[in-house]
């Protein structure tokens, strides 16, 4: 059996999915590398969270995208169950307001038939209300696609990585891959900020930076990724306008349109904007007043009205990696042997991720003539952190009896208990990520609520400080320390 050391650059949704798929086989020793302190902190945590039906993918212009999107949509139903990822499948309505938009929308019916997307049809105004009570009554119709879903994208990455690590994947965080090392046209490994890592195969899933990585391998030198910034606004859970279906405006050539969805966490979210930034602006995730006003306007097109703006609890932005011409760059290279590009995975990247992973494996097997040997004891299941939030009081009481930590509520807005926070910390360490306050947030939804952490962030910090045995000020929030020192550090003249 041929065994390969595989280094995957980037622990986002793509890299993690590939790692999971590879972990099913004896042939691969996988190390998953990410420059951040935790997994999924790039585009994977700041997107619209949609599992697309794929009737918007042009099968003639982008056949690979269309094919893998449809497959991915199906596979997510399995993966979300196996991996206990919060997901729901409400279906979506592409809303149109005039005959021009209706004409555009009809195009997607044709795509749907070509791509094999089930149940797509136009619903006109009189029927529309019964589909979605919160819809803008001025809309003349919508294209209904029942196979649309939404899941928690950052929890998805975490779940996939936990399962991968459980099945032998090694995670290396806080490690910046600087270049791919090649000798005699064969990949030998990657040079990183933490030293050289040997690898027979390097898979480039580095998101926004996949172009740089590819260039260091001498491949696709004309391939450049533009960051496409998308802003979002999130409303508090307790608003009265929460669409059941996924709503979105009719797409434009630039973007999939703006969505209004009720996330799996129960929040109304509107977004994204779509703004192309210069190639080197790969860290510019600023929100803007223009973006905010634009999203309000678009949201009003979709919904009968918006909740009061005082109910906005968060505005954020993410960067999506936009390849030239919208084409995904997925290729398994013979020259250099061992380098694989999975780059520029723009929308429908999240939807297609599991299918992309299988596709890459398939390509690898064929090009590199690998005889796959399935692992006998591959565990497909992963269970999420138990929360008292979803239990009734009798179940909660029993749980507290077993573990009193479940009775100590830390995040009041989202009802996250000390037990869950401790478990989140354990899980971060178990996969080999660095414990941070943000890492705990993403695993428990603490600080995601109305007060945005003003009540509980320091309580979470206290728990983390106690568990790790390090002083409060040395804890890391997302990238930097919670404090610059103890309160007398400046008076002592130490800074």
């Amino acid at each position, binding site marked *: 059996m041929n065994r390969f050391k595989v280094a995957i650059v980037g622990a986002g949704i793509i890299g993690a999915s590939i790692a999971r798929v590879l972990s099913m086989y004896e042939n691969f020793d996988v190390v998953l590398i990410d420059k951040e302190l935790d997994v999924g902190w790039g585009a994977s945590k700041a997107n619209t969270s949609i599992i697309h039906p794929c009737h918007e993918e042009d099968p003639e212009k982008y056949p690979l995208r269309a094919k893998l999107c449809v497959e991915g949509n199906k596979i997510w139903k399995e993966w979300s169950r196996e991996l206990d990822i919060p997901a729901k499948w409400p279906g979506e309505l592409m809303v149109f307001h005039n005959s021009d938009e209706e004409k555009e929308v009809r195009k997607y019916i044709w795509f749907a038939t070509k791509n094999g997307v089930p149940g797509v049809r136009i619903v006109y105004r009189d029927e529309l209300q019964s589909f979605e009570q919160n819809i803008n009554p001025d809309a003349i119709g919508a294209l209904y696609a029942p196979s649309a879903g939404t899941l928690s994208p950052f929890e998805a990455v975490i779940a996939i990585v936990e399962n991968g690590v459980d099945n032998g994947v090694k995670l290396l965080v806080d490690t910046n891959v600087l270049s791919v090392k090649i000798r005699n046209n064969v990949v030998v490994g990657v040079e990183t900020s933490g030293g050289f890592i040997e690898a027979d195969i390097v898979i480039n899933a580095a998101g926004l930076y996949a172009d740089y990585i590819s260039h260091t391998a001498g491949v696709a030198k004309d391939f450049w990724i533009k960051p496409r910034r998308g802003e979002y606004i999130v409303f508090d859970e307790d608003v009265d306008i929460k669409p059941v279906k996924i709503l979105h405006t009719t797409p434009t050539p630039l973007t999939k349109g703006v969505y209004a969805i009720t996330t799996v966490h129960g929040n109304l979210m509107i977004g994204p904007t779509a703004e192309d930034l210069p190639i080197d602006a790969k860290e510019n995730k600023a929100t803007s007043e223009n973006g905010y006003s634009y999203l309000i306007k678009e949201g009003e097109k979709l919904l009968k009205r918006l909740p009061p703006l005082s109910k906005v609890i968060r505005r954020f932005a993410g960067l999506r990696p936009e390849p030239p011409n919208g084409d995904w760059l997925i290729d398994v290279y013979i020259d250099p042997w061992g380098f694989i590009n999975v780059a520029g995975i723009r929308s429908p990247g999240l939807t297609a991720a599991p299918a992309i992973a299988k596709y890459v494996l398939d390509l690898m097997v064929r090009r590199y003539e690998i005889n796959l040997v399935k692992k006998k004891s591959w565990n497909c299941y992963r269970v999420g952190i138990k929360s008292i939030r979803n239990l009734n009081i009798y179940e909660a009481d029993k749980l507290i009896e077993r573990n009193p930590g479940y009775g100590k509520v830390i995040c009041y807005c989202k009802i996250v208990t000390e037990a869950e926070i401790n478990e989140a910390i354990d899980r971060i360490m178990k996969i080999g990520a660095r414990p941070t306050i943000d890492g705990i947030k993403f695993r428990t939804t603490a600080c995601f609520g109305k007060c945005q952490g003003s009540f509980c962030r320091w309580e979470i910090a206290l728990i983390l400080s106690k568990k790790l045995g390090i002083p409060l000020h040395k804890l890391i929030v997302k990238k930097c320390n919670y404090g*610059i*020192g103890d309160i007398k550090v400046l008076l002592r003249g130490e800074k």
Partner: protein
Amino acid sequence: MIEKKYDVVVIGAGPAGIAAAVKSRKLGLNTVIIENRDILGGIPLQCIHPGFGIHYFGVDLTGCEFIQRLIDEMSKNVVDYVLNGYVYSIDIYSYNEKLVTVVTPKGIYRIEAKTIIYTAGARERHLFELNIFGDRPDGIYTAGEAQTLMDLYGVLPGKDIVIIGSGDVGLIMARRFALEGANVRAVIEIMPYPGGLMRNVVQCLKDFNIPLYLGHSVIEIIGRNRVEAVKVAKVDENLKLIKGTEFILPCDTVVIAAGLIPNIDLLEKVGVAVDPRSRGPIVNEYLETSIPGIFAAGNALVINDLVDYAAEQGELAAEGAKTFIDNNGIPTKDWIKIDVGRNIRFIVPHYVSGERDVIVYSRVQRPESNIYFSINSFRIKMFNVRPAEMIRIKIPRKIFSEIHSSRIIAEVTPI
């Protein structure tokens, strides 16, 4: 599951809650106080500055000294309390039976209560409730969080500080940072006048040469990993940005002291009527909310600047609870609404009976000098009124009982 029964359940062991619980006990009522945290005391525990207790105890104490006195009162009066208790829900079985479900590490408590006194305080406005865009780096704290870190846990959040909001909380934190050696670059205030007391502007800003930018707003935060700077601009009289006035202030820490909001989610869930002016519950003179038997006091009722008033409201609510229990409900009255007139932002309580003297708590919309504060024929001369300084006055019964048109209006008029 632990089942209990009490006359009074107090939610929140801050100054209003503890004062309410002690009073309630003194009035002979079976009382329990539920507290989220693992200690009693609430916010005053982290307030190391004086200004607490001048009215309530007759002496000027720091917040921590003040609350210790209240906690000692509680022990003396043997008030039951539950720590680490999160009130998950309030259910209304009947007119005078409420069920309070509390999550604690000992298990779930189901407490049958005849009355509830809700004193869960306020929450702070956070970054996204302000018109600030830009990056979301590390180094952004609310003022309360910064205060907790510094004065309970001895942590210094940063060294180059910009504070948003010149209310007393912001001013106090400016002084704290400056005293501990940090460089407070500026306090940014959107209104044309300071949000806090003049004495605090003197003691907290002038003393330390901290620049105060009135009529300005932070419009953007800049920073990749940690805060690196803020962009500030002048605003006009409508609080709209004036283009061309933007400037950058380098800093590594942003402290948001942009105001408090009554923390009443739990009450809203049971359907309590809320006053959009005070952002707290609508109450009658017994401090009873629109749900019979549920009372509110302290910052959960209305944002107070003096802890003394929060404690006083706690006691009034306890008296209200006693009246409720003794009479099987607050007796039906011909309640009169106090309307809000010229230059009044809000006035609490909202409904009076005309049968008793009533203490009212009010704030003006904008600062004014040499005015009358009046409620119908009751009139008091005041030199300066400012939104930052709550007006607290005991209005004699006869003002309400001599209403001819059953309309009462509170207003501020120039002399």
